[in-house]
């Protein structure tokens, strides 16, 4: 596929850019693979990549019903952070964040990781106490965060109104190593490397059935023919319940719409990511100058990739109070993604009642930041049957009451 480098750009400039090759192949599916991954979003492709890179399993197909990275991977607000309260969450998100730091070099594809810092505003006394506690927990977990006062908040992000009448900014949980990345590039970079390792990334191939024999998975039925497999990984976010249904088990998941929007591009005015959980909105500025805004998820099940307008109104209204200067901005685009919410708002990376069938789902509203860590852990789980990163995220935790309760820890979907 050719190595991307400054030298390659210069070389191609001298020959009318005719030497660039396709970033990945589009092969016809074969009859059988050792491992089939359903879902070519970030998590699915990262799983395939680490199966090949860390475990030497390269007879792998990644099946995608639409186009590569066309689901939630291309629909999020690209925030990367790991300031979680619970140890298991902090471990997997911090693993992901550290992998993001060198992902561009690792994949030879510029994912534009920008560790600009993530700030979670404390706007009530409860939040101040909560975030102080999280900062202490993070210190024990080896995640670098600190609790900062309103003066420092204003210094880091001058466009914030810290003396807001209703929700004054009392401080913030600051993670200087958090940031953003180019979401599409993450999927594209992983796909290119998977293809380079000889894996088949097959787009427009919808799985319509799952075949089992003797309690173990034996293959999938797709719109492009039957494919046999040794192991099957379901990594399809909002449609996880739909696929679990095909394999004959249930998941503790409900799918809802989560929305985001961007404004018209303006000159650089904020170089950090700000999340305001009390009023429920978060904002950062993209490299193109658009203000990228995210808010809350709908409360009801929905598969339509469009959410309620009332949520946009709530989010923007809340953010205008904290960032008065955005009140005259026009919003350019709005979109929704279908997120898979679990009861404790933590993901599921687990084996299932069906042998050799694994699920990676339930990332809810916070999946993008976890992509490399999720792929790393899930690949290990699929290859070896166990993984320290995934150990706590099993399906049986609901029956046994071992929740990783980030919904209580964060107070909101996160």
């Amino acid at each position: 596929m050719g190595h991307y480098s400054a030298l390659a750009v210069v070389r191609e400039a001298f020959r009318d850019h005719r030497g660039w090759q396709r970033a990945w192949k589009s092969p016809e599916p074969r009859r059988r693979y050792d491992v089939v991954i359903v879902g070519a979003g970030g998590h699915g492709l990262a799983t395939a990549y680490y199966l090949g890179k860390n475990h030497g399993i390269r007879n792998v197909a990644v099946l995608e019903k639409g186009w590569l990275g066309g689901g939630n991977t291309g629909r999020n607000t690209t925030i990367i952070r790991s300031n979680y309260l619970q140890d298991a969450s902090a471990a997997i998100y911090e693993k992901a964040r550290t992998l993001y730091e060198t992902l561009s070099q690792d994949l030879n594809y510029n994912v534009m990781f920008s560790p600009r810092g993530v700030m979670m505003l404390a706007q009530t006394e409860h939040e101040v106490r909560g975030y102080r506690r999280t900062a202490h927990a993070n210190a024990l977990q080896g995640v670098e965060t600190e609790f900062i006062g309103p003066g420092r908040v204003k210094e880091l992000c001058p466009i914030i109104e810290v003396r807001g009448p209703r929700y004054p900014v009392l401080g913030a949980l600051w993670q200087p190593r958090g940031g953003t990345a180019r979401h599409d590039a993450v999927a594209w970079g992983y796909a290119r490397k998977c293809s380079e390792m000889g894996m088949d990334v097959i787009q427009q191939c919808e799985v319509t059935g799952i075949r089992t024999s003797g309690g173990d998975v034996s293959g999938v039925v797709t719109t492009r023919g039957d494919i046999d497999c040794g192991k099957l990984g379901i990594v399809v976010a909002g449609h996880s319940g739909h696929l679990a249904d095909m394999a004959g088990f249930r998941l503790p998941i409900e799918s809802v719409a989560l929305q985001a929007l961007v404004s018209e591009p303006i000159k650089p005015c904020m170089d950090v990511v700000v999340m305001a959980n009390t009023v429920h909105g978060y904002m950062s500025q993209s490299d193109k100058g658009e203000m990228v805004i995210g808010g809350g998820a709908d409360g009801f099940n929905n598969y339509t990739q469009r959410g309620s307008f009332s949520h946009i109104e709530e989010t923007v209204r809340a953010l205008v109070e904290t960032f008065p200067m955005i009140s005259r901005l026009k919003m350019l685009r709005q979109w929704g993604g279908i997120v898979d919410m679990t009861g404790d708002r933590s993901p599921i990376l687990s084996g299932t009642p069906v042998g050799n069938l694994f699920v990676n789902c339930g990332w809810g509203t916070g999946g993008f930041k976890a992509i490399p860590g999720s792929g790393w852990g899930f690949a290990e789980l699929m290859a070896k049957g166990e993984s320290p990163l995934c150990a706590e995220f099993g399906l049986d935790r609901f029956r046994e009451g071992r929740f990783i309760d980030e919904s209580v820890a964060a107070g909101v979907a996160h």
Partner: protein
Amino acid sequence: MLILTCPYCGIRCDETELAAGGEAHLKRFGPGSSDEEFEGYLFMRANPKGVHFERWRHAYGCGKWFHAARNTATLEVYGTYPAQVHEPPQEVLDAISTRVPGWRWKDVS
């Protein structure tokens, strides 16, 4: 914008007037049930891409709980009905059947 008609006060309310309450017609399991039954009651949810039955509360109105039959793939609403029932009334089932040929109530319960 989702609009449901409250079966008690007859008001057509948009979703900002309502509170969503999750899946309807769950069978409740408590003391004496098995771990699997209790887990199923607490956490496992039907998450269909299609016809779905939900609990809603007319929070900023009469305050009562009611049920709604809705399609999660098209956002079509088939009907609403009072919550004091074990299964949807026949007219709601008929409304679904005419819109979704081949659909049967026992497919979801």
